[in-house]
C-alpha cells in the first residue's frame, strides 16, 4: 500500500469513526429515573461531605467508651460449604472497606464502623478479634474527623486488620500465622499511622498558615479585620485543633498502654 492509499485509508477510517460515534452516543431520552436517583445519591453524599468540611481538620483519636452494644445472640458459626465461617462473617466488612477505599465519606465510614460494631458484638469471647475491632474503631473515628486528609496508612491499617481478623476468627492451625504476631504487626502499623497523622496534620496547619489564615498568636495581637466567615472561624478551629491534639495524645498513650496490657 502506497502513501496515497494510506491517506485515503485513514480518511475513510476517520469518517467511519465519526459516523459510528455520532450514531452511538445519542442518549436515548436522557437519563433514566434510576440513573437520576443514583446521581442524586452521589450528589447528596457530596453535599453532606461539604457540610462536614468544617470538622475536616478536627482530627481526634478519642477513646472508644461509647461502643454501642449490639445483641447478636444467635449462632454465628454456621457458614456455607463454599467458604470458611470467618470469610462469611467478614464479607460485609470487606465490602464496606472497599467502598471506603474508593471514597472516604461519612456514609462509608459509618457503614464500616457499623460493621466493626457488629463484628465486635459477635466475637466477645475472642480477645484477639476484640483488640483488632477496638483499634479499627478508633481508626474510624480518626477517618471520620479527617476524611480525605487522613493518612493513607489508615486504610492500610484497616486492610491489615481485616486480614488479621480472618486469622483471628479461625481455630488455631499449624499453617496459620501466630495471632500474637499479627496483633504486634497491627500495633506497629497503628503507631506508624499515628505518627503519619501527626506529620500530615502539622503540614496541613503549615499550609493553612501559608495561605494567610491567622495563627493564634497573630489573632490575639491584632484586631480582627473584616474577613470572610471561613477565615474568622479558622482561628477558633486552630485553637480547637490544638486542644484536640493534646487530648488525642493523652488518649493514644492510654489506649496503647491498655492494648499492650491486654496482649500481655
Amino acid at each position, binding site marked *: 500500500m502506497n502513501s496515497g492509499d494510506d491517506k485515503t*485509508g485513514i480518511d475513510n477510517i476517520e469518517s467511519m469513526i465519526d459516523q459510528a460515534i455520532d450514531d*452511538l452516543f*445519542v442518549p436515548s431520552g436522557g437519563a433514566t429515573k434510576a*440513573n437520576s436517583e*443514583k446521581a442524586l445519591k452521589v450528589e447528596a453524599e457530596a453535599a453532606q461531605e461539604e457540610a462536614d468540611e468544617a470538622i475536616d481538620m478536627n482530627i481526634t483519636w478519642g477513646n472508644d467508651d461509647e461502643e454501642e452494644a449490639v445483641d447478636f445472640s444467635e449462632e454465628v458459626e454456621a457458614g456455607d460449604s463454599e467458604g470458611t465461617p470467618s470469610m462469611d462473617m467478614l464479607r460485609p466488612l470487606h465490602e464496606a472497606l472497599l467502598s471506603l477505599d474508593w471514597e472516604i465519606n461519612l456514609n462509608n465510614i459509618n457503614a464500616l464502623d457499623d460493621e466493626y460494631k457488629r463484628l465486635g458484638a459477635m466475637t466477645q469471647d475472642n480477645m484477639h478479634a476484640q483488640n483488632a475491632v477496638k483499634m479499627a474503631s478508633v481508626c474510624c473515628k480518626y477517618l471520620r474527623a479527617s476524611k480525605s486528609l487522613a493518612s493513607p496508612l489508615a486504610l492500610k491499617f484497616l486492610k491489615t486488620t481485616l486480614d488479621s481478623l480472618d486469622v483471628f476468627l479461625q481455630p488455631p492451625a499449624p499453617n496459620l500465622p501466630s495471632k500474637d504476631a499479627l496483633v504486634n504487626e497491627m500495633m506497629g502499623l497503628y503507631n506508624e499511622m499515628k505518627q503519619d497523622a501527626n506529620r500530615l496534620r502539622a503540614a496541613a496547619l503549615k499550609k493553612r498558615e501559608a495561605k494567610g489564615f491567622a495563627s493564634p498568636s497573630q489573632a490575639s495581637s491584632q484586631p480582627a479585620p473584616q474577613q470572610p466567615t471561613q477565615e474568622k472561624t479558622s482561628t477558633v478551629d486552630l485553637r480547637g485543633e490544638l486542644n484536640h491534639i493534646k487530648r488525642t495524645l493523652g488518649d493514644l498513650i492510654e489506649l496503647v498502654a491498655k492494648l499492650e496490657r491486654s496482649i500481655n
Partner: protein
Amino acid sequence: MSFLDLSKREVHVKIVYYGPGRGGKTTNLLHIHEAMTDAVRGQMVSIDTKQDRTLFFDFLPLSIGKIFGFDIRIQLFTVPGQVIYNATRKLVLKGVDGVAFIADSQVSQKEKNIESLENLRDNLADIGVDINKIPLVLQFNKQDLAAEGIPLLSEADMVSDLNSVYNVPCFNASALTGEGVFETLREISKTTVKSVARKLMPSLTSGMT
C-alpha cells in the same frame, strides 16, 4: 497503549476520566452507563487487586461496532480523585489512550482543579506519555449549581486556569442532569479512536481480508 486482538479482530481503546475528588467523574460514568442500551454497554465493575493498595475503579466497555472488520471497544475508566490515591491513579493511567478531565466549576475548587491537572501531567510523564500528545478534553462540571446560588468560575476563568496551555476542546456540563456528558464523551471518543486508528493503521489494513 491500545490493545489490538487480531484473533478476535478487536481494538480496545482506553479512556480515563480524571479530575479532582468529588468533581463528578463517577456521576459522568453512571449517567453514560444508564443512558446506553444493553447492546453496546458492558457491566460496571470494580476490582480488588489483593495487593497492598486496592485498585477499585469503574470500567465501562462500549462497543462502537465494526470498522474495517474490527470491533472497536471503548473502555471508560475513572480513578479516585482524592490526593492520597496517587498510586492507584498512576496504575489506572497505564496504557491510557485518551483523557477526559472533569473539572469542578465551583469557585472553591479552583486550586484543586489546577492541582489535579498538574497531577495528571506529572503522572502521564511518569509513564512516558506527553500530555500535549495524548487526546484530551476538558469538562467544566457542576454548572447546575449556579441555580442554587453557589458561586461558579466563569468559563473564561476556567479556560485561563486549565486550557491556556493545552488548548483542547472543552464543554460546560452538569453530570447530575446529563447536560454536556455525551458531548464530552463523543469528543474524547472521536479524537481517541482516530488517534489509535492512525497508530494501528498498518495492522488494521494488514488484518483485513
